[in-house]
Each structure stands twice: as C-alpha cells, then as structure tokens.
C-alpha cells in the first residue's frame, strides 16, 4: 500500500514542462559515437591484449638490441684466441666462459645471434620480394600465366628444401651471401602461394571493380588495392619464415656448411661445442638457449600476430 502511495505522489509532482520531446533525429544516427579505429589499430589492440605474444615481442626486442650492442660493450672480440685460457667455465672475467681456443663465449654468442638474425631476416626479406612479385603476377593475371608459373613453382617445391640448400652449399663456397642465397632459392614459394591465394580472392571484390571502372590500370590495382589488402597474411608468413631460416642456418652450420670460422653463428657454436660438451657444458648451453629462445619468440609472436590480424582464424 505504501508503495502505491509513493507512486501516486511522484506522479503528482510532475508537470508537463518536465517533459521534453526527443524524437528520432535522422542526422544523429550518422554521428560517430566512438573513435573509429583503422584495421591496424584494431589489430594492435587485439595483439596488446595477448600477453604471451607481447612477452615474446619484448624478448625479441631485447635479443635484437643485445645482438647489436653487446659485442661493442664487451672488452673481448669474437675472433681473438687466448690459448692460456681455454675452456674456462663462466666467471666474472668471461661471463659465459671461453671455448677451446680461449675465445670469449659471451661475445661470440651475441655476435652469433647477430649473424643468425641477419641470415633469418635477409632470407625472409628476399623471400618476401620474390614471393610477392611472383605470387602477385600469378594471382592477378590468372589463366594460362598462372597455370604455367604455378606448375613451375610446384615442381621446385616438391624437391625437399634442405636437400636443395645442402647441394648448393656443397658446390658453392659457404659464406654469408651464399647461405642466404641458398636459403631463398626455393624459400620464396610458400610466400608466393599465400600472395596468389589472397590476390585471387580479392580481385573479384567490388572495390576492385569500382577502381577498374574508374580507369585504374593493372599496376595501380595491384599496388594500391590488392597488395595492401593482402598485407596481413604476408606479415604473418614473414614472421613465421624467419625462424625457419634461422633453423636452416643452424642445421647447415651443424653439417659444417654454415658460416666459416672465426665468424660465429649460433648453429656453428653449438656444432663446435659438441666435441667436448659433456665436460664443458657452458659452451653448448648459451648458444643453444639463445637459438631456442629466438625460435620460440618468433613462433609465439607469429601465432599472436595471426590471431590479431585475422580474428576469423582464431581457434
């Protein structure tokens, strides 16, 4: 009963002036309530929420910075032998110990990381350039051009990757340049297929038709409309192809086909350490941990990036 009374009293207090006509204003519907986000900002926000991927990105940043600057900071260099101090365990003098020629492992590890990252990034960059051009042509022109080019890449692709690389390096003198070249000789194929698939899907969309009907040429269509829209999958493919190249380089170094001494790469350091590593585990430990960490971070970051750029793919 009491509440009823209350209700009545509230009603009684309201006057017609208290009401305002709101109505439906058509123009108001067009006003943007929230700041509009570009696809990139959107992806970045999704990525930022992925703690694992951000940690991986942070670790990668730290490793890259260390690989660049650590060799400068240390008082040792990567090539000087010190035969009085061979196979010394880690100490305040040599933070990671020394190897069988008395070289400082701390410097060699970071220098090796530099080489490994350089090989990985350079191989990925070359794969990107060739893959985008080749895949772009296949996808854009389609038809017979696509058919022939695709058959060619398929034949190359069926030859096992590491075998091709080994064959080339056995014949060529192993050096940084030839290693990168060998790694890219069939490495670009995957990228070209990703680009081809994307372009094929995109080229039938309305915005391409619109641009075409306004007189845009092939070049403009490809570089202004098709490729920019395929950037997401391309970036993800790069992030995941860097660790592949780093692994391949480590594998080649293991076979003695990698960079030649005194230059160190993480793979060649691991290979060198294996002769006596049951007695000198630190020679193995530091490069092995670092190469694993690099591969791990790239893989986790790449997965996170894929989820962020293409939420549809998220499992």
């Amino acid at each position: 009963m009491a509440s009823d009374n209350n209700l009545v009293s509230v009603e009684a207090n309201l006057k017609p002036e208290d009401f305002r006509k709101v109505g439906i204003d058509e123009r108001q519907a067009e006003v943007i309530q929230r700041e509009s986000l570009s696809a990139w900002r959107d992806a970045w926000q999704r990525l930022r929420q992925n703690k694992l991927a951000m940690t991986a990105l942070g670790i990668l940043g730290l490793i890259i910075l260390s690989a660049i600057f650590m060799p400068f900071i240390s008082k040792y260099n990567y090539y000087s032998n010190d035969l009085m101090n061979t196979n010394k365990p880690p100490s305040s003098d040599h933070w990671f110990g020394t190897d069988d020629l008395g070289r400082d492992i701390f410097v060699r590890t970071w220098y090796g990381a530099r080489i490994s990252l350089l090989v990985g990034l350079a191989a990925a960059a070359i794969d990107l350039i060739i893959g985008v051009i080749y895949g772009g042509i296949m996808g854009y022109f389609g038809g017979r051009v696509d058919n022939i080019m695709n058959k060619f890449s398929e034949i190359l692709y069926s030859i096992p990757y590491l075998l091709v690389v080994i064959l080339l390096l056995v014949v060529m003198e192993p050096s940084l340049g030839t290693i990168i070249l060998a790694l890219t000789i069939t490495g670009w194929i995957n990228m070209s297929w990703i680009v081809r698939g994307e372009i094929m899907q995109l080229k039938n969309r309305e915005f391409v038709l619109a641009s075409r009907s306004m007189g845009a040429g092939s070049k403009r269509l490809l570089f202004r409309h098709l490729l920019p829209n395929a950037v997401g999958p391309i970036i993800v493919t790069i992030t995941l192809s860097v660790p592949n190249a780093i692994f391949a380089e480590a594998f080649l170094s293991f076979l003695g086909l990698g960079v030649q001494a005194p230059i160190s790469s993480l793979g060649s350091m691991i290979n060198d350490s294996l002769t006596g590593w049951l007695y000198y585990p630190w020679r193995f430990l530091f490069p092995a941990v670092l190469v694993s960490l690099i591969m791990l971070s790239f893989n986790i970051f790449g997965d996170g990036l894929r989820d962020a750029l293409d939420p549809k793919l998220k499992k």
Partner: protein
Amino acid sequence: MGMVRYIANKLFYMLVSLFVLVSATFFLMKAIPGDPFTSEKKVPPEIKARLYEQYGLDKPLYHQYFKYLGDIAQGDLGVSMKRLNQDVSHLIGQTFSASLKLGAVAIVVSVIVGVVLGMLAALYHRKFIDSAAMVLAVLGIAVPSFVVASVLQYVFAYKFGWFPVSGFKGPLNYFLPVAALSAQPIAFIARLTRSSMLEVLNADYIKTAKAKGLSWIQILSKHVLRNGILPVVTYIGPMTANVVTGSVVIEQIFGIGGIGKQFVEAIGVRDYTVIMGITIFYGVLLMLARFITDIAYVFIDPRIKLSGGKEG
C-alpha cells in the same frame, strides 16, 4: 575418372621433380672445378686419357648426362670418390637398415604420442592438461632437434646414466634418439589433432550420437577419433621429411651408423658422388612420402574435391 586423373597428375609431378633433382645433381657436380682425377699424383697424359675413357669423361657433356640418367634409373649411383671402389648404392644399402629402424620407430612413436596428447588437450580444453600439452607443443616446434638431442644425451645418458651415450645395439639405444627425433613431429601432430578434435567435438553429429544414447567411449572411438585425426594424414609427408633431415643430425650425435652419418661424413670430406647419391636417395624417399600423402588423403576423406586443390 577423377581419381585416376588426380593420381596420374600427382605421379607426373613427382617424376618431373625427380628429374629436375637428378639433373641438378649432375650439373652441379660438373660445375665443381676439377674432376675426380685432379687430386691424384702427377700421371702421364696417356694414363689420364685412358682413365677419362674408362669413365666416359672424354665423351661430350650431353652423352655423359644421358648415361648418368640411365645409370640412376637402374639404381647405379656411381662410385665413391674418396673411398676406394666403394659403390654408392652399396653404401646406402649397408647403412639403410639402421636409419630405417630409427626412422620407423620415431614415426610410430610420433603418431601415437602426438594423437594421444592432442586428444587429451581437446578433451580437457582450457584445463591444465590442455595448457601443459600446448606448452610442450610450442617448445617441441621451436627447439631445434639437435639441441633436444644434446640435452637428452647430457641429462639422461651422461648425468643419470640411464641410457647409453651412443651406439645402436640394444633396445635401450633407441630411447634417446627416438625421443629427440620425434619431439617436433609430436608437437605438430598434437596441435593438429587438438584443433581438429575441438572442431569435431562441437559438430552436430556428435550431439546426435549423444542423443542416440551412445556411450562416451563409443562416441570417442567411432566418431571423434576417426574424424579428428584426418588432418594428421596430411602431415605424413612433412613428417617424413622432418624425420629424415632430423636423422642426419641425430645419427651423428648418438653415433648411429646410418645413412645420415654417412651423409655428414661425405659432406665433411667433400665426397661428391656420395653426397649426390644420398641426396637423390633422400629425394626419392621424400617425394614418395608426399605422393602417398596426397593419395591417402583423398581415399580417407571423401569430402575432398579432386579439382587439383593444393594442400594447405
């Protein structure tokens, strides 16, 4: 009709790729400066000419090329350049059994452990087992096999002494190399199985099966497992490649006298005929594995289209 064309198409590609690989080995070998007899002691030109004639090196290049193709088609991979009178085919035959045993065990272990791990992760989705399995999977994919092998060797053979450090005699010798070799395939298979299982578990036909009153065991074995491991079949080809390249390193680390060890040694002394011979052998093996994968997948999954689709 579609099936026959599909198989013929794949077979054609395999043969062309093989031809490219074999031709590449021939021309790369010709590109190396010098010939098998340059390193010999000073020999009179008459004897050298006689040697060239003996090995057909005096003939024009195209002639040598066709002879090489013919020899390889008959399984003759030439003679080792460093070891006296060692036939490359014979060398491969001698060392193949060790590699085969190791590889076969690694593949079987990978499939069983990988599928079980992936299945557990899917069944206990977002629980501890799932996270643990996926952490293991990421580690398995990221850590190079030779690092895994060395760590296993150090911890379990050297420190604890549970397993022999090297050699390939008894069943105990299998544990560490197989573990190192199958780490990466297990990781891949577990991830594949998990994601496809998750998809299957949410499918309508599982709900139907539950509604029909099938027991959980029956649903798992008849419906979930069968459909869930389909993607694993596509991984047979890459897995073989993985195990083969992995074995090159693993055999070296654990001192197993297989083809991989021969390969590494041949690379070390630049024994070109052995390198090329083993390359061709590996090439045939891996291409066959890919071919079988392509065919098996179509047979197992009737939903797949035969319009020459490429695997993902």
